[in-house]
């Protein structure tokens, strides 16, 4: 991988920095760190994807064929943890590292050394997660939400998982502090807050959510560790604790967390849509306010994850209405994207395809979210495949599609080469078809009552599960195509045009050459 990076950044030869592996270990350059984040998350994406393939292979037919139930539980648990903390979140931080300094006209991130630390913390955490499969007792198997009492009982694998989550949390907090400081203190003269690109705005708000929610996660993980090893009884009923308390604290983190994973996706889409519609973003300021409203609302809806855990009706009603309210600012964003495209001179290159695919499928996931918010329906569908379908529509065709779109959009700027447009379109259409094949049928399975996290199922679910598994295998294979496209793009000899997207208006396109030089904006640009 290092060799690949070396090629990408070969143009940095006039700068003084160590070469070989030490360049990557010691680098404080935001572009290097951004690349490392992106490669890391891609690796974790395939690790989590491998687990997903295992899950779908087991569910291909009823009965137990491939994975013993205990191992199946570990697969679902680690699939969730790795995808959330190892793939999606670091990928967005990678984008932030590459793009935010260039988009606000700063020479680098505010705390370059801390930036390096927050990346390298990810490696031991990932190793802990993956190697926990090989310790006695196996990896954590109580679900990615690690509810006690299961997480209070498991073996060494659970400890490794908890420690990994701690490290990943610390890394995210450091990253968030870096991003907030960069955005607030390092903008070029004239770049007022309300002139910032939407991607920067969404990341600023996301970073605030991170420093708000991640320490709470650290707190609840610490409580679980002391319950396990130091005789405290936060969640241990025998000692007077309450397992439901864990759910409340966990979801106080967990719900902002899902918006941490989607707000930067909104940001990427808000960059791509105007570029390929050749119109400025419709309703820029309403976009900013909608993002902020979503962030604020996300902090008061956590108990909708626990409608069946036992709650007074008043509580259920409050959390139901608060949750449904989030549909309003989200709809503002969707209408703004649509209005941006309206009467635009649209072209449909791969980034635009992914962005439109994002809007289309994210709206489906958003609607099934509103359905899940309704208490009586939630009581019916909770812990079924309906919920699985819902959050894969917002996280895969939401967050992940936006990441793909963003990658295609900025690859020319990062590498100086153009990706293969035909293959990119293949990647999009295959992903689109297989994704829907894998997850749309899961709505039906969930409504019919198929429970999640169970390796076997009743015979009447067999056909839909087979369709879903075939879709999942196809989706997994399609992603190998993405790796091929990226490597082909990096190795390509043909330089990309200076400005491959004529509708692009942000600083990295208008004020910097392609590929972006190793050091950019050492003298800040002046924004009019």
């Amino acid at each position: 991988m290092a060799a690949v990076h070396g090629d990408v950044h070969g143009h940095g030869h006039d700068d003084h920095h160590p070469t070989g592996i030490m360049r990557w270990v010691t680098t404080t350059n935001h572009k290097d760190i951004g690349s490392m984040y992106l490669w890391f998350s891609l690796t974790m994406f395939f690790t989590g994807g491998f687990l997903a393939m295992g899950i779908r292979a087991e569910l291909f037919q009823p009965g137990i064929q491939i994975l013993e139930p205990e191992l199946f539980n570990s697969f679902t648990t680690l699939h969730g943890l790795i995808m959330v903390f190892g793939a999606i979140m670091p990928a967005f931080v990678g984008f932030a590292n590459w793009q935010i300094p260039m988009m606000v006209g700063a020479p680098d991130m505010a705390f370059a050394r801390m930036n390096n630390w927050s990346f390298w913390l990810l490696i031991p955490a990932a190793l802990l997660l993956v190697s926990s499969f090989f310790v006695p007792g196996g990896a954590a198997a109580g679900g990615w939400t690690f509810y006690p009492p299961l997480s209070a009982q498991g073996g060494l694998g659970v400890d490794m998982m908890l420690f990994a989550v701690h490290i990943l949390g610390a890394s995210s907090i450091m990253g968030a502090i870096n991003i907030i400081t960069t955005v607030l203190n390092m903008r070029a003269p004239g770049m007022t807050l309300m002139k910032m690109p939407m991607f920067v705005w969404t990341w600023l708000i996301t970073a605030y959510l991170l420093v708000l929610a991640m320490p709470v996660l650290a707190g609840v993980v610490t409580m679980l560790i002391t319950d396990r090893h130091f005789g405290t009884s936060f969640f241990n009923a025998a000692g007077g604790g309450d397992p439901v308390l864990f759910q409340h604290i966990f979801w106080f983190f967990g719900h902002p967390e899902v918006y941490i994973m989607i707000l930067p996706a909104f940001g990427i889409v808000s960059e791509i849509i105007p570029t390929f519609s050749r119109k400025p973003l419709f309703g820029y300021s309403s976009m900013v306010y909608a993002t902020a409203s979503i962030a604020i609302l996300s902090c008061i809806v956590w108990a909708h994850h626990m409608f069946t855990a036992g709650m007074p009706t008043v509580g259920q009603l409050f959390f139901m209405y608060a949750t449904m309210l989030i549909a309003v600012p989200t709809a503002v964003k969707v209408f703004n994207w649509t209005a941006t495209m309206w009467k635009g001179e649209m072209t449909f290159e791969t980034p635009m395809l992914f962005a439109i695919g994002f809007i289309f499928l994210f709206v489906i996931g958003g609607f099934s979210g509103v359905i899940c918010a309704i208490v009586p329906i939630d009581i019916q569908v909770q812990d079924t495949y309906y919920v699985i379908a819902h959050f894969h529509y917002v996280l895969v065709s939401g967050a992940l599609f936006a990441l793909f779109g963003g990658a295609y959009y900025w690859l020319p700027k990062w590498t100086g080469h153009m990706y293969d447009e035909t293959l990119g379109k293949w990647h999009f259409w295959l992903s689109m078809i297989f994704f829907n094949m894998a997850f749309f049928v899961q709505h039906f399975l969930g409504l019919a009552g198929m429970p999640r996290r169970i390796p076997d199922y009743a015979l009447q679910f067999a056909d839909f599960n087979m369709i879903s598994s075939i879709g999942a295998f196809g989706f997994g294979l399609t992603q190998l195509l993405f790796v091929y496209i990226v490597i082909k793009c990096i190795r390509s000899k043909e330089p990309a045009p200076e400005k491959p997207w004529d509708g692009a208006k942000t600083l990295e396109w208008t004020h910097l050459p392609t590929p972006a030089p190793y050091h950019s904006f050492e003298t800040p640009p002046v924004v009019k």
Partner: protein
Amino acid sequence: MAIKDKVENNLTMMKKLLIFTVVMFVFGYAMVPFYEKFCEVAGINNLLQPDTLSQELETDTARWVTIELDANTRGLPWDFKPLQRSVRVHPGESVEVMYEIINNSDREITGQAIPSYSPRFLDKHLKKFECFCFTRQVLKPREVKQMPVQFVIEPTLPKEFHTITISYTFFELPVGTPAISEK
């Protein structure tokens, strides 16, 4: 702006954000007493405090309710059972039932009983005046102990419930665990 000022500004920002991080970490912990207080005030999950009756209850002699008594232990060498399997009462009538625990081991063991009800919302209609579950129980080696539970089922219990279950599970408390009532 001079570079030095910029660095200083950044460091001030980092300090503020770090303080905020620590505050949120503490906030996570503050939720523990907050929820405890909240549940106490709202009367949710009030399993471990004696109840008081604000007024005399009227006994509904027209109805009978069968109360099944259940007892379990979890990971401690005790025998734990109710001395009667079930009692039949009128709603509003005060009841006393006896439970027995026997320590089968040669060490002193501290245990805590946690109640569980069926139907789940029974706690709204159950007023408990005395229970061995309000405090921890310490049993010397081979000790046998009989303990009462005093309660009343309120006539507000929905009419369709003819049989209800009250269950207790004893858990071992590690040495040095503060009792719930001391928390």
